[in-house]
Structures are given as C-alpha cells and as structure tokens.
C-alpha cells in the first residue's frame, strides 16, 4: 500500500500542526488529528466539535492547533464546515482545505443531521470521524458506534446483560447512501493507507468523509503503547474493514484470506474481558455475515 508519488513517512512535512495537546498518553484520536493536518498542510481550517480533541487541544491559554481552528457546537461540525467553505469561496481564497474532525458520538449520533445536509449540498469539505467507540471525553458512555459486547459506563457488564446489546451503526454505508463524492474507512494501524485516503479526500471536488478507527487506551482498558497494534489487529480480525466508496461503487481495499483471532483481540481489552464464549461466537457470526455481503456486492482492489 505504499504510495510512491504521494505522502509517506519520508516525504510528509516535518511541521507539526497539533502539538503540546493534553490527550491521554497513547491516544489514537490525537494521532488522527496530527496526521490528517500534516497531510493537508497549514492552509487548513479545522473545525472540532465538543469531544476529546477540543477538550485536549484548546485549554486556554494553551492552544495546540498551530493553524486556524475553531470549536463548533456538538451537532454543528458539518454545518460550520459548510459555512467556512462558503466564506472562503466568497473571499476568493485559493489553495486551502476545510477539515472537520469529530468523534464517533459527534458524527454518528449528534452530528449526523448536519453531516447529511452538507453531503446533500456537496460542499467542498473533508469530514473525518475518529472512532474510539464511545463518548470518551465525558467518561466512556455508549455511542452509536460502540460495538456489541463492549462495557461502558452506561452499558455496564452484569450477570444478565453483558455490556452493549446493540450493534455498531453502519456509518460508512449510511454516508455512502447519500451518493457522496468520496467516503472511506481507515485505521491508524494501517497508517499509510490512512495518509493516502486523506490525500485523496483533499483532491475531491465535493464532500469527502473518512471514518477512521482510533483506539482509546483509557476507555478500552488497554496499555498506553497498544493503540497502533490494536488498530492493526482489528482489521486483521475482520471486525473492522478498509474500504472506499466513489463513483457509486464500493471498493474493499483489504480482503484477508484468513482472519486473525477475534478472541485474542477482544480479551486484551478491559471493555471486552467479561465476554463469554457465546458472546464471542455472536460477534464472529455477525462479522461473517457482514463479510459475506461485502465480498458478494463490493469489488476489491487487493489481495
């Protein structure tokens, strides 16, 4: 997946645009922000709604975005992006990007309506959802993207109900169903793939959306050095997938012949440690259903 003409570890700018922030050590979400801004460069307007990244990035007077960044209302990330895009166009600005970075709750639950509107208008914006699978900033409450079985403070694990009983919302396909210009899923464990997708999104004439898997060591009960490995493992187990949507077509970027062990992936995380064998079988069965459908209906451009 090395992009020879594009941005990689050697060619990416050495400038840092998100520096000195107060995110927990080993935070996946802050890596998403850092890398996305490094790909897009300093002429980027960043909008961050309520959530971890605004809480850790704007602690007055410590302001960690070195470019133009603003906090939006929780529900209004995409509408503020639309406004900025319209204003930049009206001012006749050239060579700039309008980037929104929201969490899973701020995208799949609270900000979904504004996002839907922006996609409908085909505003030239880039929307990145960093998915740490719960409302982490406020103390690990379940969101629409919390997967089945995960323990959160609002879905505790007990004798009868073991964690979250709902399935993770299918956000990527919800967004794609709008007929968006470009949508993709990514994971910080596959860093190069993520950089390529951000770069691709920056060239789209219209709305682009990237849903990126970003582990949260604090909320998931994992060691602080584990985020990259877990984000890689989740793709290898098939519980997350790398895909793109453009020109009315779904493309699976990675189609593994064999999946890595789901049990090992789950059991290393505090939020899944209570799961019993039947729960894990449930998770595997729903993964297999999803992959069967994806492999049948989507095209694939790799192995």
């Amino acid at each position, binding site marked *: 997946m090395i992009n020879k003409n594009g941005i990689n570890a050697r060619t990416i700018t050495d400038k840092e645009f998100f520096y000195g922030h107060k995110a927990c*050590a080993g935070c996946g979400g802050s890596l998403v922000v850092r*890398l996305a801004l490094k790909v897009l460069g300093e002429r980027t307007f960043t909008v961050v709604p309520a959530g971890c990244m605004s809480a850790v990035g704007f602690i007055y007077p410590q302001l960690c975005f070195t470019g133009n960044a603003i906090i939006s209302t929780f529900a209004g990330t995409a509408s503020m992006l639309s406004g900025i895009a319209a204003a930049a166009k009206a001012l006749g600005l050239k060579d700039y990007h309008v980037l929104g970075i929201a969490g899973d709750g701020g995208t799949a639950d609270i900000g979904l309506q504004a996002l839907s509107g922006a996609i409908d208008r085909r505003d030239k914006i880039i929307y990145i959802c960093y998915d740490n699978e719960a409302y982490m900033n406020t103390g690990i409450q379940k969101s629409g993207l919390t997967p089945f079985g995960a323990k959160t403070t609002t879905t505790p694990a007990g004798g009868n109900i073991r964690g979250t009983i709902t399935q993770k919302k299918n956000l990527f396909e919800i967004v794609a169903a709008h007929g968006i210009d470009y949508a993709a899923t990514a994971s910080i464990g596959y860093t190069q793939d993520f950089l390529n997708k951000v770069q691709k999104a920056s060239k789209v004439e219209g709305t682009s959306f990237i849903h990126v898997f970003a582990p949260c060591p604090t909320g998931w009960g994992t060691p602080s*050095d584990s985020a990259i490995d877990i984000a890689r493992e989740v793709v290898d187990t098939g519980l997350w997938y790398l895909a793109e949507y453009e020109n009315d077509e779904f493309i699976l970027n990675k189609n593994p012949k064999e999946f890595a062990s789901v049990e090992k992936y789950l059991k290393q995380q505090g939020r899944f440690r209570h799961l019993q064998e039947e729960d894990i079988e449930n998770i595997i069965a729903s993964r297999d259903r999803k992959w069967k459908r994806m492999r049948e209906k989507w095209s694939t451009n790799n192995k």
Partner: protein
Amino acid sequence: MNRPRLKKYIKPEHIKDYPVGPSFEAGFLTSENSGWRTEKPVVNNSRCTACRQCYLCCPEGVIFKKDEVIDIDYSFCKGCGICARVCPKKAIIMRQEKENE
C-alpha cells in the same frame, strides 16, 4: 520552525488586556507534558535505520529526524511507548524515569 515553542503567558490584569472575542493566538503553548511520564523512550542510534515508523505513529509528534537519526522532544513526550512498540529494529527502549535521576 517546525513545532511551536513554549511562551510565557502574562495573566491579564485589566479587562482590556483580554483578547477581543473568543479567539487567541494559534500554537500558543504555556505548559509542557513531560511530567506525565513514568517511562522515557531512549533511542539506540546504532540500531536505528531512520525508517521513521516511530515518527509517523507518535500521537504527540515529539519524534523528529536530526542528522539522519531520530531525536525526541522530551518536553512534550508523555512516555506512552508506542514508538518502542512499533520500532521494527527494537532501537527504542522504555526506561523507568527514576533510573535517570
């Protein structure tokens, strides 16, 4: 300059010293993160091939290239250990902070 530096924040004494509107200078850093650390990444330069995987995966962006090897801005490193774990050559080890005192 590739990364923002620490600046001294002068606390406003009068209402007119406050910025107008809810905005402030971008990249204005007033405090470090080094106190968060219990372990410190130490680079073994003879093993490092400068592949920059650690640089790419660091959530803080504190790793940078200096004279073809890797260096770390310890003022802002939180000691998460991602760099040591992703290093293909095992050129970074995490050392307890107290050993260095």
